[in-house]
Protein backbone atom coordinates (compact mmCIF):
# COMPACT_ATOMS: atom_id res chain seq x y z
CA UNK A 1 0.00 0.00 0.00
CA UNK A 2 1.33 3.40 -0.89
CA UNK A 3 1.55 5.62 2.08
CA UNK A 4 0.13 9.05 1.43
CA UNK A 5 -0.77 11.66 3.97
CA UNK A 6 -4.52 12.17 3.59
CA UNK A 7 -6.90 14.42 5.52
CA UNK A 8 -7.57 11.75 8.13
CA UNK A 9 -3.87 11.38 8.85
CA UNK A 10 -3.39 15.14 9.00
CA UNK A 11 -6.16 15.49 11.56
CA UNK A 12 -4.68 12.75 13.73
CA UNK A 13 -1.23 14.34 13.55
CA UNK A 14 -2.60 17.79 14.27
CA UNK A 15 -4.38 16.53 17.38
CA UNK A 16 -1.22 14.78 18.59
CA UNK A 17 0.89 17.88 17.98
CA UNK A 18 -1.46 20.31 19.67
CA UNK A 19 -2.11 18.06 22.67
CA UNK A 20 1.63 17.55 23.08
CA UNK A 21 2.26 21.28 22.65
CA UNK A 22 -0.12 22.13 25.49
CA UNK A 23 1.54 19.67 27.82
CA UNK A 24 5.04 20.67 26.71
CA UNK A 25 4.21 24.25 27.63
CA UNK A 26 2.69 23.16 30.93
CA UNK A 27 -0.81 24.36 30.10
CA UNK A 28 -2.64 21.14 29.28
CA UNK A 29 -5.10 21.15 32.19
CA UNK A 30 -5.76 24.86 31.78
CA UNK A 31 -6.33 24.93 28.05
CA UNK A 32 -7.36 21.49 26.85
CA UNK A 33 -11.07 22.26 27.22
CA UNK A 34 -10.74 24.90 24.49
CA UNK A 35 -8.71 22.68 22.16
CA UNK A 36 -11.60 21.02 20.27
CA UNK A 37 -13.03 24.46 19.47
CA UNK A 38 -9.65 25.78 18.34
CA UNK A 39 -8.99 22.80 16.11
CA UNK A 40 -12.45 23.04 14.57
CA UNK A 41 -11.92 26.74 13.85
CA UNK A 42 -8.46 26.20 12.39
CA UNK A 43 -9.64 23.53 10.04
CA UNK A 44 -11.49 25.13 7.17
CA UNK A 45 -13.11 22.00 5.79
CA UNK A 46 -16.16 20.55 7.47
CA UNK A 47 -16.62 16.83 7.22
CA UNK A 48 -19.45 16.17 9.60
CA UNK A 49 -23.06 17.26 9.81
CA UNK A 50 -22.33 20.16 12.10
CA UNK A 51 -19.70 21.97 14.10
CA UNK A 52 -20.85 20.32 17.32
CA UNK A 53 -20.25 16.83 16.08
CA UNK A 54 -16.89 17.93 14.72
CA UNK A 55 -15.90 19.26 18.16
CA UNK A 56 -17.17 16.15 19.90
CA UNK A 57 -15.00 13.99 17.63
CA UNK A 58 -11.97 16.18 18.28
CA UNK A 59 -12.58 15.73 22.00
CA UNK A 60 -12.51 11.94 21.56
CA UNK A 61 -9.30 12.16 19.54
CA UNK A 62 -7.72 14.30 22.25
CA UNK A 63 -8.63 11.68 24.86
CA UNK A 64 -6.81 9.03 22.83
CA UNK A 65 -3.86 11.39 22.39
CA UNK A 66 -3.81 11.72 26.18
CA UNK A 67 -3.66 7.93 26.43
CA UNK A 68 -7.20 7.44 27.71
CA UNK A 69 -9.71 4.78 26.73
CA UNK A 70 -13.06 5.91 25.38
CA UNK A 71 -15.16 4.39 28.15
CA UNK A 72 -18.69 5.59 28.98
CA UNK A 73 -17.25 6.83 32.25
CA UNK A 74 -14.77 9.05 30.42
CA UNK A 75 -17.48 10.31 28.08
CA UNK A 76 -19.16 12.32 30.81
CA UNK A 77 -16.09 14.13 32.09
CA UNK A 78 -14.48 17.34 30.94
CA UNK A 79 -11.17 17.08 29.10
CA UNK A 80 -9.38 19.06 31.79
CA UNK A 81 -10.60 16.67 34.51
CA UNK A 82 -9.47 13.74 32.40
CA UNK A 83 -6.13 15.41 31.68
CA UNK A 84 -5.47 15.79 35.39
CA UNK A 85 -6.46 12.16 35.92
CA UNK A 86 -4.32 10.96 33.04
CA UNK A 87 -1.25 12.76 34.37
CA UNK A 88 -1.46 11.23 37.81
CA UNK A 89 -2.73 7.70 37.13
CA UNK A 90 -1.32 4.86 35.16
CA UNK A 91 -3.56 3.37 32.52
CA UNK A 92 -5.35 0.06 32.67
CA UNK A 93 -3.00 -2.60 31.40
CA UNK A 94 -5.35 -5.06 29.83
CA UNK A 95 -6.71 -3.28 26.84
CA UNK A 96 -6.51 -3.29 23.11
CA UNK A 97 -4.18 -0.64 21.76
CA UNK A 98 -6.60 0.36 19.03
CA UNK A 99 -10.00 1.79 19.74
CA UNK A 100 -13.03 2.78 17.74
CA UNK A 101 -14.23 6.36 18.09
CA UNK A 102 -17.94 5.56 18.06
CA UNK A 103 -19.22 8.96 17.04
CA UNK A 104 -16.69 9.19 14.22
CA UNK A 105 -17.59 5.73 12.90
CA UNK A 106 -19.97 6.18 10.01
CA UNK A 107 -21.56 2.79 10.54
CA UNK A 108 -20.76 1.73 6.98
CA UNK A 109 -23.33 -0.57 5.37
CA UNK A 110 -23.29 -4.14 6.58
CA UNK A 111 -25.11 -5.53 3.55
CA UNK A 112 -22.47 -6.76 1.16
CA UNK A 113 -24.52 -6.73 -2.06
CA UNK A 114 -26.64 -3.87 -3.13
CA UNK A 115 -28.66 -3.30 -6.31
CA UNK A 116 -28.09 0.13 -7.80
CA UNK A 117 -30.24 2.28 -10.06
CA UNK A 118 -28.35 0.84 -13.00
CA UNK A 119 -30.77 -2.11 -12.78
CA UNK A 120 -32.88 -2.09 -15.96
CA UNK A 121 -35.45 -4.62 -14.81
CA UNK A 122 -34.52 -6.68 -17.85
CA UNK A 123 -36.41 -9.69 -19.09
CA UNK A 124 -33.59 -12.10 -18.38
CA UNK A 125 -33.52 -11.56 -14.63
CA UNK A 126 -30.18 -13.34 -14.54
CA UNK A 127 -29.61 -12.20 -10.97
CA UNK A 128 -32.78 -13.91 -9.80
CA UNK A 129 -31.85 -17.13 -11.53
CA UNK A 130 -28.29 -17.04 -10.24
CA UNK A 131 -29.31 -16.62 -6.61
CA UNK A 132 -29.19 -20.02 -4.87
CA UNK A 133 -31.36 -18.79 -2.01
CA UNK A 134 -34.18 -17.08 -3.86
CA UNK A 135 -33.30 -13.85 -2.13
CA UNK A 136 -33.94 -11.65 -5.15
CA UNK A 137 -37.38 -10.41 -6.09
CA UNK A 138 -38.59 -7.61 -8.35
CA UNK A 139 -40.01 -4.70 -6.44
CA UNK A 140 -41.13 -1.47 -8.10
CA UNK A 141 -39.42 -2.02 -11.44
CA UNK A 142 -36.11 -3.05 -9.90
CA UNK A 143 -34.47 -6.13 -8.50
CA UNK A 144 -34.35 -6.22 -4.73
CA UNK A 145 -32.25 -8.34 -2.36
CA UNK A 146 -33.91 -9.73 0.74
CA UNK A 147 -30.94 -9.32 3.06
CA UNK A 148 -32.26 -11.87 5.55
CA UNK A 149 -31.90 -14.57 2.91
CA UNK A 150 -28.71 -13.32 1.22
CA UNK A 151 -25.65 -15.49 1.94
CA UNK A 152 -23.23 -13.05 0.28
CA UNK A 153 -22.06 -15.51 -2.36
CA UNK A 154 -21.80 -12.82 -5.04
CA UNK A 155 -23.32 -14.93 -7.85
CA UNK A 156 -25.93 -12.26 -8.63
CA UNK A 157 -23.24 -9.67 -9.16
CA UNK A 158 -21.45 -11.93 -11.60
CA UNK A 159 -24.68 -12.73 -13.42
CA UNK A 160 -25.85 -9.16 -14.00
CA UNK A 161 -25.05 -8.04 -17.55
CA UNK A 162 -25.23 -4.37 -16.56
CA UNK A 163 -22.91 -4.57 -13.59
CA UNK A 164 -25.78 -3.08 -11.63
CA UNK A 165 -25.04 -4.96 -8.43
CA UNK A 166 -22.51 -3.37 -6.16
CA UNK A 167 -20.23 -5.15 -3.72
CA UNK A 168 -19.72 -3.05 -0.61
CA UNK A 169 -16.94 -3.56 1.94
CA UNK A 170 -16.48 -2.10 5.33
CA UNK A 171 -12.85 -0.98 4.99
CA UNK A 172 -11.97 -1.86 8.59
CA UNK A 173 -13.40 -5.36 8.32
CA UNK A 174 -11.74 -5.94 4.96
CA UNK A 175 -8.41 -4.81 6.43
CA UNK A 176 -8.50 -7.16 9.42
CA UNK A 177 -7.08 -10.57 8.54
CA UNK A 178 -8.21 -12.16 11.81
CA UNK A 179 -11.83 -10.94 11.83
CA UNK A 180 -11.33 -9.10 15.09
CA UNK A 181 -13.41 -6.16 13.94
CA UNK A 182 -17.12 -6.57 13.28
CA UNK A 183 -20.24 -4.45 13.22
CA UNK A 184 -22.25 -4.33 16.40
CA UNK A 185 -26.04 -3.91 16.56
CA UNK A 186 -25.98 -0.22 15.67
CA UNK A 187 -23.56 -0.96 12.81
CA UNK A 188 -20.62 0.72 14.56
CA UNK A 189 -17.32 -1.09 14.40
CA UNK A 190 -16.44 -3.21 17.41
CA UNK A 191 -13.00 -4.67 18.17
CA UNK A 192 -12.68 -8.01 19.94
CA UNK A 193 -9.56 -7.48 22.01
CA UNK A 194 -8.91 -11.21 22.44
CA UNK A 195 -8.66 -11.61 18.69
CA UNK A 196 -7.01 -8.26 17.89
CA UNK A 197 -3.26 -8.40 17.25
CA UNK A 198 -2.85 -4.59 17.44
CA UNK A 199 -1.38 -4.58 13.94
CA UNK A 200 -3.03 -1.25 13.12
CA UNK A 201 -4.38 -2.21 9.69
CA UNK A 202 -7.91 -1.07 10.50
CA UNK A 203 -6.67 2.26 11.79
CA UNK A 204 -4.83 2.98 8.56
CA UNK A 205 -7.70 1.84 6.37
CA UNK A 206 -10.68 3.65 7.95
CA UNK A 207 -11.55 6.58 5.65
CA UNK A 208 -13.35 8.33 8.51
CA UNK A 209 -10.37 8.14 10.86
CA UNK A 210 -12.65 6.46 13.35
CA UNK A 211 -10.03 4.03 14.63
CA UNK A 212 -7.02 5.18 16.52
CA UNK A 213 -4.49 4.02 19.10
CA UNK A 214 -3.65 5.39 22.54
CA UNK A 215 -0.69 7.68 22.70
CA UNK A 216 1.84 7.75 25.53
CA UNK A 217 3.03 11.26 24.69
CA UNK A 218 1.97 12.77 28.01
CA UNK A 219 3.94 10.42 30.22
CA UNK A 220 7.02 10.68 27.99
CA UNK A 221 6.85 14.48 28.19
CA UNK A 222 6.62 14.18 31.99
CA UNK A 223 9.80 12.11 32.09
CA UNK A 224 11.61 14.44 29.71
CA UNK A 225 10.68 17.46 31.80
CA UNK A 226 11.23 15.75 35.13
CA UNK A 227 14.21 14.41 37.02
CA UNK A 228 14.17 10.98 35.42
CA UNK A 229 17.02 9.75 33.30
CA UNK A 230 15.58 8.93 29.89
CA UNK A 231 16.80 6.76 27.05
CA UNK A 232 15.36 6.87 23.56
CA UNK A 233 15.63 3.58 21.67
CA UNK A 234 14.92 4.04 17.98
CA UNK A 235 13.80 1.10 15.87
CA UNK A 236 15.87 0.05 12.85
CA UNK A 237 13.01 1.27 10.65
CA UNK A 238 13.78 4.88 11.62
CA UNK A 239 16.13 5.38 8.67
CA UNK A 240 14.61 7.90 6.28
CA UNK A 241 11.53 8.53 8.44
CA UNK A 242 12.29 12.04 9.58
CA UNK A 243 13.07 13.51 6.17
CA UNK A 244 16.84 13.35 6.63
CA UNK A 245 17.50 10.66 4.02
CA UNK A 246 19.80 7.96 5.42
CA UNK A 247 21.36 10.15 8.10
CA UNK A 248 20.61 9.65 11.78
CA UNK A 249 22.80 12.51 13.08
CA UNK A 250 20.10 15.21 13.09
CA UNK A 251 17.59 12.86 14.74
CA UNK A 252 19.95 12.00 17.58
CA UNK A 253 20.71 15.66 18.06
CA UNK A 254 16.99 16.45 18.14
CA UNK A 255 16.36 13.69 20.70
CA UNK A 256 19.05 15.19 22.96
CA UNK A 257 17.47 18.61 22.52
CA UNK A 258 14.14 17.16 23.50
CA UNK A 259 15.72 16.06 26.78
CA UNK A 260 16.65 12.42 26.28
CA UNK A 261 19.86 11.65 28.14
CA UNK A 262 20.79 8.98 25.64
CA UNK A 263 19.67 7.76 22.24
CA UNK A 264 20.37 4.25 21.04
CA UNK A 265 19.61 2.16 17.98
CA UNK A 266 17.50 -0.95 18.51
CA UNK A 267 19.48 -2.42 15.60
CA UNK A 268 22.03 -3.34 18.26
CA UNK A 269 19.33 -5.30 20.10
CA UNK A 270 18.56 -6.95 16.76
CA UNK A 271 22.19 -8.08 16.55
CA UNK A 272 21.79 -9.75 19.93
CA UNK A 273 18.58 -11.44 18.76
CA UNK A 274 20.18 -12.63 15.51
CA UNK A 275 23.00 -14.25 17.49
CA UNK A 276 20.82 -15.67 20.25
CA UNK A 277 18.13 -16.95 17.92
CA UNK A 278 20.59 -18.72 15.65
CA UNK A 279 22.07 -20.44 18.69
CA UNK A 280 18.56 -21.44 19.76
CA UNK A 281 17.87 -22.75 16.26
CA UNK A 282 20.89 -25.03 16.35
CA UNK A 283 19.81 -26.38 19.75
CA UNK A 284 16.16 -26.96 18.84
CA UNK A 285 15.84 -27.76 15.15
CA UNK A 286 15.41 -30.45 13.94
CA UNK A 287 15.91 -32.74 16.97
CA UNK A 288 13.57 -31.14 19.51
CA UNK A 289 11.44 -29.10 17.17
CA UNK A 290 10.56 -29.42 13.48
CA UNK A 291 10.65 -25.66 13.00
CA UNK A 292 11.13 -22.30 14.70
CA UNK A 293 9.03 -19.12 14.44
CA UNK A 294 10.50 -15.66 14.87
CA UNK A 295 9.53 -13.71 17.97
CA UNK A 296 10.40 -10.11 17.14
CA UNK A 297 7.06 -8.92 15.71
CA UNK A 298 4.55 -8.64 18.59
CA UNK A 299 1.54 -8.74 16.26
CA UNK A 300 2.80 -11.99 14.71
CA UNK A 301 3.40 -13.48 18.16
CA UNK A 302 -0.14 -12.56 19.19
CA UNK A 303 -1.44 -13.99 15.91
CA UNK A 304 0.11 -17.35 16.70
CA UNK A 305 -0.93 -17.35 20.36
CA UNK A 306 -4.52 -16.28 19.75
CA UNK A 307 -5.29 -17.88 16.41
CA UNK A 308 -2.87 -20.81 16.05
CA UNK A 309 -2.35 -21.76 19.74
CA UNK A 310 -1.10 -25.26 18.89
CA UNK A 311 1.86 -23.74 17.10
CA UNK A 312 2.83 -21.29 19.82
CA UNK A 313 5.36 -23.71 21.32
CA UNK A 314 7.42 -23.23 18.17
CA UNK A 315 7.90 -19.50 18.76
CA UNK A 316 11.48 -18.64 19.59
CA UNK A 317 12.03 -17.89 23.27
CA UNK A 318 14.25 -14.93 22.37
CA UNK A 319 12.95 -11.60 23.52
CA UNK A 320 12.42 -8.97 20.82
CA UNK A 321 15.23 -6.61 19.78
CA UNK A 322 13.42 -3.86 21.70
CA UNK A 323 13.40 -5.87 24.93
CA UNK A 324 16.98 -7.10 24.39
CA UNK A 325 18.31 -3.57 24.09
CA UNK A 326 16.15 -2.42 27.02
CA UNK A 327 17.79 -5.09 29.20
CA UNK A 328 21.25 -3.86 28.23
CA UNK A 329 20.18 -0.25 28.82
CA UNK A 330 18.71 -0.93 32.25
CA UNK A 331 22.02 -2.43 33.27
CA UNK A 332 24.10 0.38 31.80
CA UNK A 333 21.83 3.03 33.24
CA UNK A 334 19.75 1.65 36.13
CA UNK A 335 16.60 3.54 37.16
CA UNK A 336 16.29 5.14 33.76
CA UNK A 337 13.08 5.39 31.76
CA UNK A 338 13.41 3.55 28.47
CA UNK A 339 11.27 4.79 25.58
CA UNK A 340 11.01 2.78 22.38
CA UNK A 341 10.38 4.79 19.22
CA UNK A 342 9.18 2.82 16.23
CA UNK A 343 6.61 2.40 13.47
CA UNK A 344 4.56 -0.04 15.52
CA UNK A 345 1.40 0.00 17.61
CA UNK A 346 1.62 -3.62 18.79
CA UNK A 347 4.91 -2.71 20.50
CA UNK A 348 2.84 -0.65 22.94
CA UNK A 349 1.20 -3.83 24.16
CA UNK A 350 4.46 -5.78 24.13
CA UNK A 351 6.15 -3.06 26.19
CA UNK A 352 3.32 -3.04 28.72
CA UNK A 353 3.47 -6.81 29.09
CA UNK A 354 7.27 -7.03 29.18
CA UNK A 355 7.47 -4.48 32.02
CA UNK A 356 11.01 -3.62 30.96
CA UNK A 357 10.22 -0.93 28.40
CA UNK A 358 8.60 2.06 30.06
CA UNK A 359 7.07 3.83 27.11
CA UNK A 360 6.49 3.56 23.37
CA UNK A 361 6.06 6.30 20.79
CA UNK A 362 5.48 5.91 17.06
CA UNK A 363 7.54 7.89 14.56
CA UNK A 364 4.41 9.92 13.97
CA UNK A 365 4.12 10.74 17.67
CA UNK A 366 7.80 11.60 17.91
CA UNK A 367 7.58 14.00 14.97
CA UNK A 368 4.49 15.57 16.58
CA UNK A 369 6.51 16.00 19.78
CA UNK A 370 9.36 17.66 17.87
CA UNK A 371 6.92 20.11 16.33
CA UNK A 372 5.28 20.71 19.71
CA UNK A 373 8.69 21.52 21.22
CA UNK A 374 9.63 23.74 18.24
CA UNK A 375 12.47 21.47 17.19
CA UNK A 376 13.07 21.50 13.47
CA UNK A 377 15.46 18.81 12.26
CA UNK A 378 16.10 20.67 9.01
CA UNK A 379 17.71 23.58 10.86
CA UNK A 380 19.93 21.49 13.12
CA UNK A 381 23.57 21.68 12.14
CA UNK A 382 24.93 18.46 10.79
CA UNK A 383 27.17 16.93 13.41
CA UNK A 384 29.38 13.98 12.64
CA UNK A 385 27.45 10.86 13.47
CA UNK A 386 28.86 8.65 16.20
CA UNK A 387 29.76 5.22 14.87
CA UNK A 388 26.90 2.77 15.19
CA UNK A 389 26.93 -0.07 17.71
CA UNK A 390 24.92 -2.16 15.28
CA UNK A 391 25.71 -4.15 12.17
CA UNK A 392 24.03 -4.03 8.79
CA UNK A 393 22.30 -7.34 9.58
CA UNK A 394 20.81 -5.91 12.78
CA UNK A 395 19.57 -2.87 10.96
CA UNK A 396 18.16 -5.13 8.27
CA UNK A 397 15.49 -6.38 10.74
CA UNK A 398 13.49 -3.34 9.62
CA UNK A 399 12.66 -4.80 6.23
CA UNK A 400 10.78 -8.00 5.41
CA UNK A 401 13.24 -10.87 5.02
CA UNK A 402 15.81 -9.15 7.21
CA UNK A 403 15.47 -11.48 10.18
CA UNK A 404 15.66 -14.54 7.95
CA UNK A 405 18.79 -13.22 6.22
CA UNK A 406 20.48 -12.29 9.51
CA UNK A 407 19.70 -15.80 10.82
CA UNK A 408 21.16 -17.44 7.73
CA UNK A 409 24.36 -15.45 8.17
CA UNK A 410 24.46 -15.99 11.93
CA UNK A 411 24.23 -19.75 11.45
CA UNK A 412 27.36 -19.85 9.30
CA UNK A 413 29.32 -19.96 12.56
CA UNK A 414 27.93 -23.41 13.30
CA UNK A 415 29.18 -25.12 10.16
CA UNK A 416 26.72 -27.35 8.33
CA UNK A 417 23.22 -26.51 9.53
CA UNK A 418 20.00 -27.47 7.77
CA UNK A 419 18.49 -23.99 7.73
CA UNK A 420 15.73 -23.20 5.28
CA UNK A 421 14.44 -19.72 5.99
CA UNK A 422 11.02 -18.48 5.00
CA UNK A 423 9.47 -15.08 5.45
CA UNK A 424 5.90 -13.87 5.46
CA UNK A 425 4.70 -10.28 5.42
CA UNK A 426 1.17 -9.28 6.25
CA UNK A 427 -0.96 -11.34 8.64
CA UNK A 428 -2.77 -13.08 5.77
CA UNK A 429 0.47 -14.45 4.43
CA UNK A 430 1.65 -15.31 7.96
CA UNK A 431 -1.50 -17.40 8.51
CA UNK A 432 -1.08 -19.17 5.18
CA UNK A 433 2.54 -20.08 5.92
CA UNK A 434 1.69 -21.22 9.46
CA UNK A 435 -0.87 -23.60 7.99
CA UNK A 436 1.76 -25.02 5.63
CA UNK A 437 4.12 -25.55 8.54
CA UNK A 438 1.47 -27.36 10.54
CA UNK A 439 0.82 -29.76 7.66
CA UNK A 440 4.59 -30.24 7.23
CA UNK A 441 4.23 -28.96 3.69
CA UNK A 442 6.37 -25.87 4.05
CA UNK A 443 9.69 -25.73 2.21
CA UNK A 444 11.30 -24.01 5.21
CA UNK A 445 12.06 -24.76 8.86
CA UNK A 446 12.30 -21.18 10.09
CA UNK A 447 9.56 -18.62 9.54
CA UNK A 448 10.05 -14.91 9.93
CA UNK A 449 6.57 -13.48 10.52
CA UNK A 450 5.94 -9.79 9.99
CA UNK A 451 2.46 -8.36 10.44
CA UNK A 452 3.10 -5.40 8.18
CA UNK A 453 3.63 -5.50 4.47
CA UNK A 454 7.26 -4.66 3.79
CA UNK A 455 8.18 -5.50 7.38
CA UNK A 456 8.51 -2.82 10.05
CA UNK A 457 9.17 -0.19 7.38
CA UNK A 458 5.50 -0.50 6.44
CA UNK A 459 4.22 -0.08 9.99
CA UNK A 460 1.15 2.03 10.82
CA UNK A 461 3.25 4.59 12.70
CA UNK A 462 5.62 5.23 9.80
CA UNK A 463 5.88 8.63 8.15
CA UNK A 464 7.46 7.82 4.81
CA UNK A 465 6.58 5.26 2.16
CA UNK A 466 8.43 1.93 2.16
CA UNK A 467 9.73 2.42 -1.37
CA UNK A 468 11.76 5.40 -0.21
CA UNK A 469 12.81 4.20 3.23
CA UNK A 470 13.99 0.85 1.82
CA UNK A 471 16.44 2.74 -0.39
CA UNK A 472 17.79 4.75 2.53
CA UNK A 473 18.00 1.64 4.72
CA UNK A 474 20.17 -0.11 2.16
CA UNK A 475 22.32 2.96 1.66
CA UNK A 476 23.02 3.35 5.36
CA UNK A 477 23.56 -0.37 5.75
CA UNK A 478 26.33 -0.30 3.17
CA UNK A 479 28.01 2.53 5.09
CA UNK A 480 28.14 0.71 8.42
CA UNK A 481 31.54 -0.43 9.63
CA UNK A 482 30.21 -3.77 10.78
CA UNK A 483 28.21 -5.79 8.27
CA UNK A 484 27.23 -9.01 10.05
CA UNK A 485 25.88 -9.61 13.57
CA UNK A 486 28.51 -12.32 13.97
CA UNK A 487 31.27 -9.77 13.30
CA UNK A 488 29.97 -7.36 15.92
CA UNK A 489 32.36 -7.84 18.88
CA UNK A 490 30.17 -5.93 21.32
CA UNK A 491 27.09 -7.94 20.39
CA UNK A 492 28.97 -11.23 20.80
CA UNK A 493 30.15 -10.14 24.21
CA UNK A 494 26.69 -9.05 25.37
CA UNK A 495 25.03 -12.26 24.21
CA UNK A 496 27.55 -14.21 26.27
CA UNK A 497 27.10 -11.91 29.26
CA UNK A 498 23.29 -11.89 29.22
CA UNK A 499 22.83 -15.51 28.12
CA UNK A 500 19.46 -16.90 29.22
CA UNK A 501 18.29 -13.48 30.34
CA UNK A 502 17.63 -12.70 26.68
CA UNK A 503 15.07 -15.52 26.59
CA UNK A 504 11.52 -15.38 27.81
CA UNK A 505 10.85 -17.57 30.81
CA UNK A 506 8.49 -20.35 29.88
CA UNK A 507 5.30 -20.11 31.91
CA UNK A 508 4.93 -23.55 33.33
Amino acid sequence: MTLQVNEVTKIRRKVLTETARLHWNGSLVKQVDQLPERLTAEHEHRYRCCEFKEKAIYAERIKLAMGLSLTPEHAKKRLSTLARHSLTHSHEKNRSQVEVIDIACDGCPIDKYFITNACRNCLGHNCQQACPRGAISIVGNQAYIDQSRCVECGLCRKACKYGAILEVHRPCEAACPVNAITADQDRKAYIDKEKCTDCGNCMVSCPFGAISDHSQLLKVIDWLKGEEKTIAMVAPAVIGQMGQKEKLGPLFQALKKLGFDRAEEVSFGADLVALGESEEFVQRVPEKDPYLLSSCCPAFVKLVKAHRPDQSEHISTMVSPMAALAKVMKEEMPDSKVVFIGPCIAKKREAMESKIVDGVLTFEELAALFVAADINLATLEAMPEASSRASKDGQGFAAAGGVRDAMAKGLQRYGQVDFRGGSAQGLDECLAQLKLLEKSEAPFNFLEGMACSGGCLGGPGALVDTRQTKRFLELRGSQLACQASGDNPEALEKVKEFGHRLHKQSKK
Partner: protein
Amino acid sequence: MTKITVGLCAGTSCHLMGGMDLVTVVEELKKKLGDDLQVQKHTCLNQCRKGPNVTLNGRLFLGMTPEQLKNEILALHDLEEEKNQ
Protein backbone atom coordinates in the same frame (compact mmCIF):
# COMPACT_ATOMS: atom_id res chain seq x y z
CA MET B 1 13.99 28.74 -21.80
CA THR B 2 11.21 28.54 -19.25
CA LYS B 3 12.24 28.34 -15.66
CA ILE B 4 10.07 27.47 -12.72
CA THR B 5 11.56 27.40 -9.26
CA VAL B 6 9.78 25.30 -6.69
CA GLY B 7 10.89 25.55 -3.06
CA LEU B 8 9.88 22.68 -0.80
CA CYS B 9 9.91 23.05 2.95
CA ALA B 10 11.89 20.28 4.62
CA GLY B 11 11.03 21.41 8.15
CA THR B 12 9.78 18.79 10.59
CA SER B 13 6.30 20.30 10.77
CA CYS B 14 5.80 20.25 7.00
CA HIS B 15 7.33 16.78 6.91
CA LEU B 16 4.74 15.57 9.43
CA MET B 17 1.92 17.06 7.36
CA GLY B 18 2.93 15.26 4.18
CA GLY B 19 5.93 17.14 2.77
CA MET B 20 7.36 13.91 1.38
CA ASP B 21 4.35 13.46 -0.89
CA LEU B 22 5.19 16.82 -2.45
CA VAL B 23 8.79 15.74 -2.95
CA THR B 24 7.54 12.67 -4.81
CA VAL B 25 5.34 14.79 -7.10
CA VAL B 26 8.17 17.21 -7.85
CA GLU B 27 10.58 14.36 -8.57
CA GLU B 28 8.10 12.96 -11.08
CA LEU B 29 7.54 16.34 -12.75
CA LYS B 30 11.28 16.90 -12.88
CA LYS B 31 11.56 13.85 -15.14
CA LYS B 32 9.11 15.46 -17.55
CA LEU B 33 10.21 19.09 -17.35
CA GLY B 34 13.93 18.61 -16.86
CA ASP B 35 15.89 21.84 -16.45
CA ASP B 36 12.72 23.90 -16.77
CA LEU B 37 12.01 22.97 -13.17
CA GLN B 38 14.48 24.02 -10.53
CA VAL B 39 14.07 22.55 -7.06
CA GLN B 40 15.07 24.33 -3.86
CA LYS B 41 14.86 23.33 -0.24
CA HIS B 42 13.63 25.57 2.57
CA THR B 43 14.28 24.76 6.19
CA CYS B 44 11.24 26.69 7.41
CA LEU B 45 8.78 29.15 5.85
CA ASN B 46 7.43 30.30 9.23
CA GLN B 47 3.85 29.15 8.61
CA CYS B 48 4.16 25.80 10.35
CA ARG B 49 0.52 25.55 11.43
CA LYS B 50 -0.63 25.62 7.82
CA GLY B 51 1.82 23.16 6.21
CA PRO B 52 2.97 21.59 4.07
CA ASN B 53 4.20 24.82 2.52
CA VAL B 54 5.83 25.50 -0.80
CA THR B 55 7.15 28.46 -2.80
CA LEU B 56 6.59 28.70 -6.54
CA ASN B 57 8.72 31.33 -8.27
CA GLY B 58 8.96 33.06 -4.93
CA ARG B 59 5.25 33.03 -4.16
CA LEU B 60 4.22 31.25 -0.95
CA PHE B 61 1.57 28.53 -1.03
CA LEU B 62 0.23 27.10 2.24
CA GLY B 63 -1.32 23.70 2.90
CA MET B 64 -0.35 22.26 -0.45
CA THR B 65 -1.62 18.90 -1.63
CA PRO B 66 0.26 16.79 -4.19
CA GLU B 67 -2.48 17.22 -6.85
CA GLN B 68 -2.63 20.97 -6.29
CA LEU B 69 1.13 21.34 -6.58
CA LYS B 70 1.22 19.32 -9.77
CA ASN B 71 -1.53 21.45 -11.31
CA GLU B 72 0.10 24.72 -10.23
CA ILE B 73 3.47 23.76 -11.69
CA LEU B 74 1.99 22.53 -14.96
CA ALA B 75 -0.19 25.63 -15.28
CA LEU B 76 2.83 27.84 -14.68
CA HIS B 77 4.80 25.88 -17.24
CA ASP B 78 2.07 26.23 -19.89
CA LEU B 79 1.87 29.95 -19.22
CA GLU B 80 5.61 30.41 -19.67
CA GLU B 81 5.60 28.33 -22.84
CA GLU B 82 2.84 30.52 -24.29
CA LYS B 83 4.76 33.67 -23.44
CA ASN B 84 7.84 32.34 -25.19
CA GLN B 85 5.91 31.65 -28.36
